[in-house]
Each structure stands twice: as C-alpha cells, then as structure tokens.
C-alpha cells in the first residue's frame, strides 16, 4: 500500500480503523468533534483522539432525537453512535461551538453509553483578557477531568512533548498547502483533502512517520512538468466531507489553492509556543488562530482573513461551500460576500447536505463560474 493509499483506506471506513487501533490496545480512543478540541492534552494523556464526521449513511436512529432541520454532521454523528459503529470509543469530547453541537452533546450524553463524556465549554469571545483567562481555565479543567477519567497524571514534560508533536504535524500539513499553492499540479485536491482529513483520525505517531516523506517527495516532484493548471480558487466554509468536489472543480477548469475550512487550514494554522504553562499556551493559540464563525474575534476578522488568503494564494475566485443548516456560516455569508465584492473577488456559493448535489449540475455551475474569471 502506498502512503497515499493508507490515508484513503482510513477515510473509506474510519470506524474500522478505530477498531483496529483499539485492538492494538496502545492508547485509549477519544472521539471529538471540532478543531477547538485540545488534541495536545489528549495525546499527552496517552490517548488517541479520533475526529468524528457524519457517517454518510441514511439517518434512521438519529431521527428519533433530532429534527430534519438539524445539520447532517450532527445527525450523522449521532446515527453512527446509536448504530453502535463507535463502540471502540473510550470517551467523547464536545468543545462548545454552535447550538446544534451543544445539543448533540446533551443527547449523546443521555443516549450513548460510553465510559466518559467531557464538555469543554470554551468562551465564545476570543478578543478579551477575561475570555483568554477563561479559555485557559477551561483547558486546565479539561486536563484534570481527563486525568481523573483515565486515572493518570499528565506531567508538564508530556504536555510539552505533545505540543512539539502537534507543531511538527501542523508544520508539515501547512507545508503541503504551500506546495499546493506554489505548484498546484504537484498534488490533486482530493489527495490533499484526504491527507488532511485522515490526519485527524490516524495514529499521530504513524502520521509523523509518513508525513515528512510525503513532503520530501512532493518537494522533489514540484515544478516538474508543470502543466497549466486551472483558475486558482479558495474555498471557505465549515467542514468539507466531499473529496469529489476537488475533482469536479479541477475538471471544470479550476484548482483549489487554499481554504478556510475547519477540515483544512483552520485545523493546522498557528503554532503553540513551548511555555512553562503548556495549557495556557494552547489557549493562546485558540485565541489567535483563524476563528470558526461560532466564535467572536472581532466584527471584520473573518472577512479580513478570507481576503488575505485570496491575496496570498493569488486566487481569482472564492467558493463558499456550506453545510445546509449550519447557522454560523450562513449568517456570515452576506458580509463575507460583500467584502469580496468590494475587493472585486468573484465568488460562488454551494450548499450541500450529507451528499453532494448531482455532479452534472455542480459541474455546470463551476464551469460557468470559472469561465467568468
């Protein structure tokens, strides 16, 4: 199996991979939902954090708990748990983000049997001193909660080592994005997407074994036989569960050179400093990292960041890629679009549920959009 195939294999059936890891018995497995989960702490606790996405299967069991106007990520995740696909989890962590994830935590706690369930109720504001102090308090509490649940002590050294591991991982993932932006033909959009997404599930030790080689290979390959790639695009939204979208965009004459996704650059941006209080250092990264729209980091921060990505990546257009019923993103859309319009950056909006709309329809929309650029 090539290294790339390994990533594809994991995403094809994440639960099977979870069971396999569990079978190896080296680490307890902790499910989590969002990029504000303090991975470093879980890793330092000797556990493995395993990101949960919607199952992609038809929802039946979760229908008894959530209405149809709840997003497919939340419904799908609950479906997976109720169907018993996630029996390998030793616990689940719910950082507070939006109203739907908030209720998912409650309903999960009440209906899914598991050894432990931890809420990390982060601040919603990211731009005040008291919020920063609270962020640090909450993460410290998470650390001690985890210690008591797993019956261990997480030392400072272990925390600092974990931070180093994640800084390295984030560094490599960031480098992959840079290579993609410099020489888009070096790696396909779906391959890159698959690596990033699988890296939220895969054993982090294994990930660190293969990421350096992937980067080295691509560094060698880049620029060789660069064929004229398509029009440069940036994507923005919440989670992207659809590797096919990259292929469709590429076939329509575009190429994605950057994003503001929580399954993309928001996941790995920002380095955590090695400090005497490692937990406070993690809190600091959350305060300055590009924010999820469920958080508040100023009135124009997200638009500024999006325009910056477009400029930095020399992109010609933006694709808003939204999960239906995701309120925070839908609320930001008019203002983000207006900010792009002011900068004369064209954009297109695609809203998806668990499945992509018909490929033909999508292709036509992208072709029209890309031709216009």
């Amino acid at each position, binding site marked *: 199996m090539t290294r790339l195939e390994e990533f594809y294999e994991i995403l094809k059936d994440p639960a099977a991979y979870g069971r396999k890891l569990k079978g190896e018995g080296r680490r307890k497995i902790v499910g989590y939902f969002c990029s504000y989960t303090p991975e470093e702490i879980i890793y330092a606790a000797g556990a493995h954090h395993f990101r949960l996405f919607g199952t992609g299967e038809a929802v039946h069991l979760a229908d*008894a*708990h*959530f*209405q149809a*106007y*709840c997003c497919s990520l939340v419904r799908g995740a609950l479906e997976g748990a109720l169907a018993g696909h996630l029996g390998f989890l030793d616990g689940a962590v719910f950082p*507070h*983000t*939006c*109203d*739907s994830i*908030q*209720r*998912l*935590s*409650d*309903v999960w*706690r*009440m*209906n899914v049997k598991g050894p432990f369930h931890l*809420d990390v*109720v*982060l*601040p*919603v*504001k990211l731009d*005040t001193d*008291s*919020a920063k*102090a*609270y962020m640090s*308090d*909450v993460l410290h*509490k998470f650390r001690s909660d985890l210690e008591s649940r797993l019956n261990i002590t997480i030392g400072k050294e272990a925390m600092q080592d974990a931070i180093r591991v994640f800084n390295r991982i984030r560094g490599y993932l960031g480098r992959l994005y840079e290579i993609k932006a410099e020489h888009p033909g070096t790696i396909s959009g779906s391959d890159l997407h698959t690596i990033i997404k699988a890296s939220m599930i895969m054993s982090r030790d294994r990930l660190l074994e293969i990421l350096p080689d992937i980067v080295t290979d691509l560094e060698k390959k880049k620029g060789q036989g660069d064929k004229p790639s398509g029009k440069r695009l940036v994507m923005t939204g919440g989670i992207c569960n659809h590797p096919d979208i990259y292929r469709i965009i590429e076939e329509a004459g575009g190429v994605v050179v950057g994003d503001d996704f929580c399954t993309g650059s928001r996941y790995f941006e920002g380095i955590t400093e090695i400090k005497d209080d490692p937990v406070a250092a993690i809190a600091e990264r959350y305060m300055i990292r590009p924010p999820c*729209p*469920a958080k*508040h980091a100023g*009135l*124009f921060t997200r638009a500024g960041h999006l325009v910056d990505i477009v400029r930095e990546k020399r992109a010609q257009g933006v694709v808003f890629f939204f999960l*239906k*019923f995701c*309120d*925070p993103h*839908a*609320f*930001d*859309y*008019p*203002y983000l*679009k207006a900010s792009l319009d002011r900068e004369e950056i064209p954009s297109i909006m695609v*809203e998806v549920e668990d499945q992509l709309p018909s490929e033909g329809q999508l292709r036509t929309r992208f072709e029209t959009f890309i031709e216009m650029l």
Partner: protein
Amino acid sequence: MAEKKTESMNLVQEIFLYFLAGIRRTLLRFKKRKKIKEILTVYYMEAKSARISGRKVAWITSGGPVEPLIAMDVIPVYPENHGAMIGASKMGTDLCETSESMGYSTDLCSYARSDIACATVNGGPIGGLPRPDMLVCCNNICGTVLKWYEVQARYFNVPLFIFDTPFCHTGFSEEVRRYVRRQLDEYVLFLEEACGKKMDHERLSNVGKLSLEAQRLWQAVLDTTVNRPAPMSAFDAFYHLALIVTLRETREAVDYYSRLLERMNDRVARGIGAIPDEKHRLLWDNIPIWHRTRWLSEKFASHNACLVADTYTSAWCGSMKYIDENNFFDSMAEAYTRIYLNIGVDEMARMVLAMVDKYNVDGIVMHSNRSCKPYSLGQYDIAKIVEKERGIPSLIIEADMVDERSFSESQVATRIDAFMEMIKAMRQ
C-alpha cells in the same frame, strides 16, 4: 441633499413623537387600569424620540442583563420582542423574503431574518426599531444572537458588548462564575464609556430589587393556573409577557403585574376559566407560533382543552432562585447564566416534569420551531422522558415562530384533532 431632507424630516418626526410620548405618559399615569398596548406604545415612542430627550438606546437580547442599562438611563430595545410583533402582525413572511434577497438563508432564525431586513427598510408594524447607540448581546439563549448582533453592529456601526454566558451542560462551575462575574465589570465599563458617566451602584441595586419583584409577581400570575379551571391560558401569558421582557425593572411592570395578579385571583375565587369548559389541561413548549396564536387557542378550546402553562413565559423568572436580593450585582452572574435554555436537555426535562406535576397537565404540545435550535433540538428526548416518567403524551407541531411559510394549517389541525382524541380516550 435628499439625505439631508430625510434627516430633517426624521428630526421633526422625533420632536413630535417626543412631545406626544410626554402627553401619553402623563395621561397614562392617571389611568387606573393600564393596558399593555398603551404602556408599550409610550415606551416605543420614547425610544424612537430618544435623540430629542438626550437618552441613549441599546438593543439587547431578551435574556440579556438589562438592569445596568436602566440604572444608566439607557432605553433598552428588544429586537426579539420586535420579531414577535412582526410575527403576530403577520408581516414576517415579507420581511423574511427581503432578508433572503440580501443573501440570508431561509434556514436561519426568523426573528433575526425579519429584524435584519427591517433595519434596512424601516418596515414592520412599528416602522422599524429606533436606531441603537450600542448593542448588548447575551448568548444565554442561543449562539444565533451573536451572529445577528454582529450583523447589526456592522450595519449601524455602533459598539457591541458580548456578555458570554458559558453553556451549563451539567452544572455551574467556579471558572464560569469567575468569567461571567468579570464580564459584569467589563459591561459596566462599557456602559460608562458609552454614556460618559459613572454607574450609580445604589441605583442599580434598587433597579435589581424592582426587577426581582416583577419576576416574582409574574411567577405568581403564572401560578394562578394551577387552579381548575385555569383563570388564564398560555396564550394570555404570551400577551402579558411583553412587560416582563421589555420593562421588567420598572415600577410600571410591578404595578401592572400586581393588578393582573389581583384579577386572576378574583377569577379563581369566582371559578371563571380561560375557556368556557375546561376538561383537558395541556403544557406548551417553545416560543409561540406568533402568527397563529389565536387560531391555536380557538382550536384547542374547541376540544375543551386549555394550555394552562408553558416553558417559554416562565423562562423570565426561572433563575430567580440564583438571585441574591442583597447582592444583586454579583448574583447576576449565576442568574443570567443558568436560565432555561442555557442548561442541558436532561435538566430541562426535569423542569418540564416539575411543571407537569405542578399544573397537573394531561399532555404536552411542543412547537418544533425551525428558527430555534437550542429550544427545539432535544424536544424529542424530553417528550420521551415525560412519556416514560408520567405516562403523558406529547404532540409535536412543526412550524416557525414568524415565518408563515413553514406552517400547514390543515396538517396541524388534523394532528391536533388526533392528539385530542387520544387524550380524551386516555381520560376515560
């Protein structure tokens, strides 16, 4: 030029409103039985002429800490109450469509959508809300208000204060208390800067006492429906609620609810019910379907069913137990954080069970409200818990509080009929 003309016309209008408000307020003072509509009219007139009276206007979320605003002489204005008025006057669909043409998704909260649209066209039942000087957003009711207030802060270009009350899934922790308490100080600083004067803490403490008194009276009013027949219904409560939302910290609200309580007690003494022949007692859950309250009220009454209580109107006094009358300011931290919607589904279910027992209800009517995820997601679990613990059935009505497009009258009517048949069969 055109802008200048509109501006001076606005000014003339506001001066006119200012004097009219003065006259109406004086008249109201001498009126013995004040109607809620009259009180609210004067309130909105005063708010819309605040520029003339030199007072500041703050927009604030329905669950937000309003007492410091009153102590600073700021007029609080509630976009959610405005949303309810828009819904009740059936103007919601038009405004929601306007917001959709601005790029807002139809899946978003219809209070937010109609308010955002209304600000740009000054439409709606009262010609738009007065322009805010500042915005105060407390996320104890939802995350939607954060996004909504960000939109309005950009639109009006005014300062926004976010009062962040972390969600209490399973309890209230010390670090949350510290964080929220610190924000109370930040809030006071924010207001002092916006108003250019110092906070009078003694006044704040008095405002707090009035607010608490109004909340107690409101709870006492709601409690009168433990009687059979209930002297008022949840639909009446939806109407009388307006003051506890918008003017809870005023003498007016205290007077109004004192008299309302007298009236309800009198009805109880004389055995007068909200509906002619109360046979079945039901509990309402979620925000009212504002555009169909009368229809629903009549529909249930036709089955001799009275909605005797609800989880919505009692939310304004649900966290009274956390208020320390002698230390109002500090205790606001906990009271504003632990409100009904900011707690776990299991704790909400426990509160619903307590209401089921207290009001002795035979069934629950749940409005599954597309606009309100924190209120609606989790309803199915609450329904199951109540069914299991008390053997009481629930009816779920799919609708939206403002947007009429999500309501199918015939379908809902059929479901209500079927539900009532079941309740009747169970009683036999």
